[in-house]
């Protein structure tokens, strides 16, 4: 079975540009979350989506937005890129149902974004 897949794997952008990152969850998983991992730090929660609705948002500016599609895949968009947005962006999916609150997240390998 395919795991969580993310594209692209690497991306280089210039300050002020816009970027779109894509994620496909594990088949059957309806919840997708996005995390930002700056070098040397633990991942920080950005968004969670379930059934195409935003269910949680971390402490990130409005330049960050996301959406979930009917097939449960997701996009993360970042506008007006800053140097500090350089990071590994991780997507994770989780099966939702009875007891899902304690089911672990399954992570993709991430998209490495470099802003110059």
């Amino acid at each position, binding site marked *: 079975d395919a795991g*969580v897949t993310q594209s692209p794997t690497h991306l280089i952008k210039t300050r002020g540009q816009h970027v779109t990152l894509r994620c496909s969850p594990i088949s059957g998983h309806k*919840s997708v*979350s996005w*995390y930002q991992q700056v070098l040397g*730090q*633990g*991942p*920080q*929660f950005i968004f*969670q989506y*379930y059934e195409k609705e935003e*269910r*949680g948002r*971390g402490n990130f500016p409005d330049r960050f937005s996301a959406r979930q599609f009917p097939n449960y895949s997701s996009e993360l968009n970042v506008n007006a890129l800053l140097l500090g947005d350089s990071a590994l962006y*991780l997507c*994770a999916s989780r099966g*939702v149902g009875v007891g*899902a*609150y*304690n089911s*672990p*997240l*399954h*992570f*993709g*390998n*991430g998209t*490495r974004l470099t802003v110059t």
Partner: protein
Amino acid sequence: AQSVTQLDSHVSVSEGTPVLLRCNYSSSYSPSLFWYVQHPNKGLQLLLKYTSAATLVKGINGFEAEFKKSETSFHLTKPSAHMSDAAEYFCVVSGWQAGTALIFGKGTTLSVSS
């Protein structure tokens, strides 16, 4: 509010010796706790999880962790380190509500020497 504190930013061991990675948590209700591992340039892989069943949790690759409520700790151990265990390890807490975000510790880098 929930949080986790990983007490060591870097742990170095020799191959074949025991591993201990320390984690303390803070939660206003019964938490779910996880350990994830991240190898260089890779995503995160689940090692094990605690969800209020047995307090001693066994995970993959010989790792285990013990939930101690009185000490608010969830330390990760392995009896004998292998070179392939060298990686970044994250202690993680999650709330009981569906969809709650995971809160990650800052990570512990495990180095294994031959």
